[in-house]
């Protein structure tokens, strides 16, 4: 299975192109090198965001001032939110693993538009740089939260314009990636790879691509409207100029809710790859998993109003949005059932990526179930904007997307780097991380039920005990993260050489050497069988 063929071509890591040193990376149009660029920038931003998160938790360990002022806290959760959403989880799996693996998994030599691909990385870095500039210039860092709600975002003296413009530029990066993937999937599948022979990770990237392409322009326009309002005083959203704050919320969530699916769909795709590989078994209900991805992407457009149940929409809008929110839970549930069914009568090889997948399923279910509680009108009216919501979305985006990202990292690490990692340390890190995660965010559900609002620098004594637990959980989780990352980095030096198919996977990336050669395939494969064929 893992006999390494002797390819003429050097691997993408060794290949000497036109440029040298750092330029051979930042000017490369190879989808694999671009993926690595994204990986490193993304991990840097993630570390920044996670550190801000930890500092916030330390502030919240006791009521009153602990380590920072209210102004700093408000700036921190704003920057934390912007970085985590726009710079980490939205690009997340598509930009890193999608870029690296999509062409390989469908048997292509690159994406459809390699230069556009590189451009989107530049947009990405520029966008984040603008957000960071806003922290250090003007009258002080932005303090609106990542949602930039009007009219507060017009009242604050914080330096809004660069941050908003940064988010705008990040949107373009996302649109370009989506467009690129759509065209790649439509035009560049290997001969014989019909739609229903395509692996599930590319399928979710396909569904995500449409969401990126169709939803992101809405936030782009909205952010431009904020800029126009702030500089030219055109009254779109600010009531003192004759605008409507609710219009802002509608526009914002029309994008930002589908954006949640940009974050989670590729994560589901990665999990759908990991599970069959380690089960040595074809995936259960392939067609239903494909259909549910498309259903999620489609219905996901029409439920943004569930972020606004207390803002005073019309009664009809309230219950239609609530009903659709319950409907969109069904396709996600179908996926969970199929994943678990895949484990039935399997022959499971208990390796690190599989543990991540199991962890993913557990936290994703908790995130999803808490979403039902928030989608229900009577309960949301109490829980909206409390720590319950903070717990819910960390379980979904950090638990869901984050666990899948780490799972994918441990799954494809041998392929990408050509090195194996130490599984004992990887598993230890996972256990520490998992316990910290559950303590940190699990407790927040109870804080929210008791009534602790979010974005609270200081809180009533009744919330103290819960916050102590939650903050200690953050410290444990941070420690687990460090173990995981350090283990992977040290494997780059000390890891054993990876065979081309260390896990017994069946999709195309496991048929080529690790790390892959520059052109991926010596000869484009001809596909005759489904993607998870273990017969």
């Amino acid at each position: 299975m893992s006999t390494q063929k002797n390819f003429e071509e050097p691997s993408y890591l060794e290949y000497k192109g036109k440029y040298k040193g750092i330029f051979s990376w930042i000017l490369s149009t190879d989808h694999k090198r671009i993926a690595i660029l994204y990986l490193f920038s993304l991990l840097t931003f993630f570390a920044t965001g996670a550190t801000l998160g930890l500092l916030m938790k330390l502030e919240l360990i006791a009521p009153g001032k602990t380590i920072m002022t209210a102004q700093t806290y408000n700036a921190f959760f704003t920057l934390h939110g912007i970085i985590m959403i726009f710079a980490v989880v939205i690009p997340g799996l598509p930009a890193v693993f999608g870029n690296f693996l999509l062409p390989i998994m469908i048997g292509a030599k690159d994406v459809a538009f390699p230069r556009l691909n590189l451009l989107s990385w530049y947009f990405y870095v520029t966008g984040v740089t603008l957000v960071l500039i806003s922290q250090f210039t003007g009258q002080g860092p932005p303090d609106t939260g990542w949602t930039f709600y009007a009219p507060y975002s017009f009242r604050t003296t914080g330096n809004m314009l660069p941050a908003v413009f940064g988010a705008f530029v990040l949107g373009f990066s996302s649109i370009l990636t989506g467009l690129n993937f759509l065209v790649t999937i439509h035009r560049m599948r290997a001969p014989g790879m019909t739609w229903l022979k395509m692996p599930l990770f590319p399928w979710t990237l396909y569904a995500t691509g449409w969401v990126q392409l169709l939803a992101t322009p809405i936030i782009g326009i909205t952010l431009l409207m904020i800029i126009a309002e702030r500089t030219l005083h055109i009254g779109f959203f600010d009531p003192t100029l004759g605008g409507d704050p609710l219009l802002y919320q509608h526009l914002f969530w029309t994008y930002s809710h589908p954006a949640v699916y940009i974050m989670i769909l590729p994560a589901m795709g990665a999990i759908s790859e990991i599970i069959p590989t380690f089960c040595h078994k074809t995936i259960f209900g392939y067609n239903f998993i494909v259909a549910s991805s498309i259903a999620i992407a489609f219905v996901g457009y029409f439920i943004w109003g569930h972020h606004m149940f207390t803002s005073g929409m019309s009664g009809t809008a309230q219950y239609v949005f609530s009903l659709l929110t319950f409907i969109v839970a069904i396709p996600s549930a179908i996926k969970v059932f199929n994943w678990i069914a895949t484990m039935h009568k399997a022959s499971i090889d208990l390796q690190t990526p599989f543990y991540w997948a199991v962890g993913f399923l557990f936290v994703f279910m908790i995130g999803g179930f808490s979403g039902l509680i928030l989608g229900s009108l009577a309960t949301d009216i109490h829980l909206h904007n409390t720590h319950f919501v903070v717990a819910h979305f960390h379980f979904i985006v950090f638990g869901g997307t984050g666990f899948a990202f780490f799972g994918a990292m441990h799954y494809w690490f041998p392929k990408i780097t050509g090195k194996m990692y130490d599984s004992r340390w990887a598993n230890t890190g996972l256990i520490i991380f998992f316990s910290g995660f559950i303590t940190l965010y699990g407790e927040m559900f109870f804080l929210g039920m008791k009534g602790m609002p979010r974005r609270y620098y200081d809180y009533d004594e009744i919330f103290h005990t819960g916050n102590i637990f939650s903050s200690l959980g953050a410290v444990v989780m941070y420690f687990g993260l460090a173990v995981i990352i350090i283990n992977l980095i040290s494997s780059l030096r000390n890891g054993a050489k990876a065979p081309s198919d260390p896990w017994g996977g069946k999709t195309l990336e496991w048929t080529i050497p690790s790390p892959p050669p520059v052109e991926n395939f010596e000869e484009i494969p001809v596909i005759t069988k489904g993607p998870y064929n273990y017969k």
Partner: protein
Amino acid sequence: MYSTTGIEASNYVSTYNTAFYFIAGVSLLLLIGLTITMLYFVFRYNKKKNPVATQIEGNTFLEITWTVIPLVLALVMFSLGWSGWKSTTKPPKDAMNITVVARMWSFLFVYENGKQSPDLIVPVNTPVKINLVSLDVIHSLFIPDFRIKSDIIPGREKFMWFLPEIEGKYKIFCAEYCGLQHSYMHSTVNVMSKDKFKSWYAESAKAVTVAGNASPADIGEAIMRAQGCFACHTPDGTKLIGPSYFNLFGSQQTIIRDGKEMTVTVDPEYIKRCILQPNTDIVKGFPSTVMQSYRSTLSDNDILKIIEYLKTLNDK
């Protein structure tokens, strides 16, 4: 005194509980069931115990079952949430009307007879309808023990209503981020017996209640406390988002008027203008759109008392 669980402090507690316990209960059962199934598979079908996997492509009957059952459960959950919420939109005709004026970072409750209070004082077992007015940004009136919240949106007419069912004091929080002091924007609902409420309500329609022998300066301070001035100004020289009152009266202040910088003496005329038209003269180095006019809640007489109080803050 603040209860956070159990008691049915308002009409929404029981409907909230029905929806919450049903959804959370079903979810918990499913979570436990699915997790145990998954872990069982992981132990039963690991490589050692089951060296060869059985290839199963799927099963349409199962797919239909696990689509339909969750769908039915979801619809039940939806309808419980919906029916619990419906009543929030229909206040009883005989509800007592109170207006809340929210601004950065205080709530002020204004009653039909003109009475004002920073706390929400209501009689037990009487439906209360609160008209929601914000003078600056979006705030949200949240009473956890009543299981209700509603955003207060500037420029938009909105209300919320509830029926307080048990006497006692309950916390109010602001639940929409509104800037620097958001987490300090809180208040209390005080649910009184009907008799007690009646006598409180009938007391002269003064903005604040102070001891009978209070000096004008004391009354001024109490008014400012009730109106929330101290969220932005301090009496002791510390700079918050607004300038401190310390040594303010009679001093020379650099201000910006119509974009031009000038110096004025802080006299009663200037202070009155600052309170009623805060965006005319902007103190140099401070933001212009933060303080909102108090025209609707302060009378000339109140302002005179505020000025008396400010005079006491000069060191002699």
